[in-house]
């Protein structure tokens, strides 16, 4: 048997060898005498070399031996990758005789966290199996091990000792050693080919900040732990381990604490699952991060929070009725109802219920689409739309046109077919047109909802399917309230104020509101796409309003003109968008730019870091800044010497910031967090800040004196 083949001896073969040896010994009826080296004794550890064979059988190429460590209570020895600190045992065999090579096998480690530091290794007892290859088969062997072993409890004691074991030629098996060795051979992780895996992939991001692995096995996992190795110098934090596919899919994400490029190697991963299962795989590197089998609901919306959000959505939906997008539709519906005053109550009620149904159907449809997008991993977030110049241009144009309409510059003429149908509602007995009136109103509401419903929708998009459903249901109910109220009591129609001068006043007020909103959007657009694009969009919108309000144009020119001028602002917003470099960063002397790595660095120096993720389009962020952050006593607290204020500007899309937010399971802003020696992982503040909570968080983060920390 060649040496190469010997080298390839797998664990199974070793077990087989041990077992056959046991059988052999039983046949021989040999009274086994323990074949064990003289023991090394210290209060922390007792060490010995053990061997399965009592002698080297004729033609035997290998000996199965082991380094047996019996650790005292509280003492630990380390795995081949010990974690952040610690050292694996090393054995020098050079003074052995008749030994070609010794291969040391590593039983699966356990994870222990000592003094806040992650370590992998062994407690109580461990036997490192040794495959000893002989130079001359069948000849006596003399094993001489110089062992360098680090063991730690609350002291670390390096142990250097020598163990020797000589085996003469002969036959015989030490049953005690054999069973002890096989116990630990069984704990050596299986090789990939024996582990019955369907796939194993690993992803390391470009900045080497996260390692994600995903392993699909035939059999489900119970309580797995994962030990990746990326070479010395690379240290990983505690993993976030999740199971999916009835436990057969193992997903784990590690923060990379430190990375040493020179000494790094492609990841190999050891997975343990209880005492009985362990394997080591070399996962395939993939370019995209494997998605977790489920999202942890860190925010964990409670019933009260959900009720609050539902109320906000409901009120928001009601307010939407007064928005210029919806008002024309609603007023058409109501005025048609006025005409029907003499008609059968049941018909009126049915008509309004159908309209409400139309609203709800649209809202649920929207919820379903968003839910599917979420399922397919499309990044949907309300805020993200505001990073898109096309969306902003569309919003701006719509708002500008509607405000012009409210100021009476022109009348919105719905396509004549639709108008006829809407006004014909009462004459038919089918409720189809009522249904579509409601649906159309809801469609019209969507562009207007953005500035007013950000919170509720952002919540829905970040949440589970049920959150999504609840928010959109209440939004729809709010929007359908006028219809539902009339349906509940058709007589109310008679109390509707008669059209008159008051409507002109209302229109002016609403128009002003819209102008303000449009101006704000213009400002946001300046931040996102640059001044050039924003001015182009504004000019084109003005042209659009002009075309619409000028009655003199022939219809042949007018409609294509409107169509072209409706599209042009959207095109211009992207075509003329300026790169981010021209965008003056919002950082000032007090605020430094966001740098995730810098946070840990500052905290390790004992400083407190206040992180503010903001954007031009985030009104709540502006409110937080104006009402809390830029006011005493918070202002002074933030400006004290040991506090670093860090601002992340999310006005434009920014991968690093998105990932940072996602780390907290947040998909929208405002987001504020405080880091410090007392809170190295950050204290996340609520979206709406108050001076008291900010000051409390700063204090909590600062706390934890070294003495107090040591006592924990």
């Amino acid at each position, binding site marked *: 048997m060649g040496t190469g083949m010997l080298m390839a001896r797998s664990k199974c073969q070793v077990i087989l060898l041990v077992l056959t040896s046991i059988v052999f010994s039983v046949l021989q009826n040999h009274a086994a005498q323990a074949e064990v080296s003289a023991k090394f*004794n*210290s*209060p*922390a550890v007792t060490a010995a070399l053990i061997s399965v064979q009592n002698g080297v059988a004729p033609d035997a190429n290998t000996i199965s031996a082991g380094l047996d460590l019996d650790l005292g209570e509280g003492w630990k020895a380390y795995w081949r990758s010990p974690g*952040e*600190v*610690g*050292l694996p045992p*090393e054995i*020098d065999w050079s003074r052995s005789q008749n030994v070609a090579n010794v291969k040391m096998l590593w039983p699966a480690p356990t994870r222990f966290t*000592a*003094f*806040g*530091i992650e*370590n992998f290794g062994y407690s109580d007892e461990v036997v490192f199996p040794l495959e000893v290859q002989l130079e001359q088969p069948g000849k006596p062997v003399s094993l001489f091990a*110089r062992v*360098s072993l*680090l063991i*730690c*409890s*609350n*002291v*670390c*004691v*390096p*142990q*250097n000792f020598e163990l020797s074991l000589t085996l003469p030629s002969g036959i015989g098996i030490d049953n005690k050693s054999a069973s002890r060795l096989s116990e630990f051979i069984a704990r050596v992780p299986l090789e990939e080919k024996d582990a019955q895996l369907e796939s194993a992939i690993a992803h390391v991001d470009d900045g080497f900040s996260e390692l994600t692995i995903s392993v699909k096995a035939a059999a489900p996992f119970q309580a797995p732990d994962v030990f990746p190795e990326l070479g010395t*110098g690379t*240290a990983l934090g505690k993993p976030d381990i999740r199971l999916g596919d009835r436990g057969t899919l193992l997903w784990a994400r590690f923060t990379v*604490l*430190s990375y*040493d490029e*020179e000494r790094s190697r492609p990841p190999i991963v050891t997975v343990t699952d209880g005492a009985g299962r362990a394997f080591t795989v070399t996962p395939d590197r993939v370019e995209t991060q494997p998605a977790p089998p489920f999202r942890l609901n860190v925010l964990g919306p409670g019933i009260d929070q959900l009720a609050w959000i539902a109320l906000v959505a409901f009120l928001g939906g009601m307010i939407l009725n007064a928005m210029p997008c919806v008002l024309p539709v609603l007023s058409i519906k109501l005025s048609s109802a006025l005409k029907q005053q003499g008609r059968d109550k049941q018909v009126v009620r049915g008509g309004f219920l159908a309209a409400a149904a139309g609203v709800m159907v649209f809202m649920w449809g929207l919820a379903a689409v968003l839910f599917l997008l979420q399922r397919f991993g499309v990044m949907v977030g309300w805020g993200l739309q505001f990073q898109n110049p096309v969306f902003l241009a569309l919003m701006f144009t719509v708002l500008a046109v509607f405000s012009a309409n409210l100021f009476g510059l022109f009348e919105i003429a719905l396509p004549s077919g639709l108008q006829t149908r809407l006004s014909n509602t009462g004459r038919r007995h089918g409720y189809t047109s009522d249904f579509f009136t409601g649906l159309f109103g809801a469609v019209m509401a969507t562009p207007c909802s953005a500035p007013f419903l950000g919170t509720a929708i952002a919540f829905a998009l970040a949440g589970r399917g049920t959150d999504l459903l609840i928010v959109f249901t209440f939004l729809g109910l709010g929007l359908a309230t006028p219809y539902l109220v009339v349906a509940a009591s058709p007589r109310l129609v008679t109390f509707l104020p008669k059209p008159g001068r008051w409507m002109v006043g209302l229109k002016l007020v609403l128009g002003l509101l819209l102008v303000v909103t449009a101006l704000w959007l213009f400002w946001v657009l300046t931040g996102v796409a640059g001044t050039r694009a924003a001015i182009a969009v504004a000019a084109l919108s003005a042209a659009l309003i002009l075309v619409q309000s000028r009655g003199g144009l022939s219809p042949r020119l007018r409609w294509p003109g409107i169509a072209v001028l409706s599209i042009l602002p959207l095109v211009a917003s992207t075509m003329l968008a300026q790169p981010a470099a021209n965008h003056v960063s919002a950082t000032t002397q007090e605020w430094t730019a966001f740098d995730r790595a810098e946070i*840990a*660095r500052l*905290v*390790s*120096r*004992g400083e407190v870091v206040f992180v503010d993720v903001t954007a031009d389009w985030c009104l709540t962020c502006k409110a937080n800044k104006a009402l809390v952050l830029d006011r005493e006593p918070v202002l002074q607290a933030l400006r004290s010497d040991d506090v670093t204020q860090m601002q992340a500007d999310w006005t434009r899309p920014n991968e690093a910031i998105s990932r940072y937010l996602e780390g907290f399971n947040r998909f929208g802003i405002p987001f504020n967090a405080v880091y410090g020696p007392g809170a*190295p992982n950050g204290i996340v503040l609520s979206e709406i800040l108050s001076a008291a909570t900010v000051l409390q968080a700063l204090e909590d983060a600062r706390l934890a*004196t*070294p*003495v*107090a*920390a*040591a*006592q924990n």
Partner: protein
Amino acid sequence: MASRRGVVFGIAAFAAGVMSIRYARSFLEPLPEFQDLTDPVGFREISGGPSSTGFDPFVGLADPNERTRLRTPSDVRQNLCKALFGETDENFGFVPLASFSDYYCPYCRVQTKRLAGLAEQLGAGVKVVWHELPLLGDTSMLAAKAALAAKRQGAYVQFHERLLSSPFQATPEYLQLLAESLDLDHARLVSDMESKDVLQELDTSSILSEIFGFIGTPALVVGRTVIQGQISDRNLLKIIDLERSEGWAQVC
């Protein structure tokens, strides 16, 4: 109903009793007994500590290319107190604490933080002297040199705290980053790491560990008391008091 209430009361009273006894015991925890060292004379250790229970004193994991030392044991023995506690002026009003630690030892980091906290708390009452005892291989040695170089710029504790958040790496980039983040002079840090001064300090610490027969890290010498392994804050404070009242300077 009455009996059930009685049971609850009984349990509560029992729990309260156990808690108060525990608390009282921790409060009345006796000072550990001491045992005089035969060598060096005048020093003592806590009875039953790891070094008195059969550990062999070791001088580290085998290092084949060990350089020749810049100091000899007899040099060090000649002025043991100075080697251990640095320059001590004639006024012995404070209690010195010599801390020995190694980068690869988890508990060392905790002890460094605790002692730094203690020094802050007790102010002029104590003086902490930091020794590096890199017993655990090359990286350990490099980290020790970097720590001592940082110490020369007054950033020893900060350096060790930094290791808690990101492990030491034996690369020039790491040292550059380290110097930046701790506001240190990078060039000086690098040159100090291999300076004769630093090497001599390492040798002194290593010889001290042999003289005192340390079994590993961390180790602590408070006045004339040698402490190895974990000790409660309360007992440490008691020993500091004891050293102050007994006059630790008698060994010097």
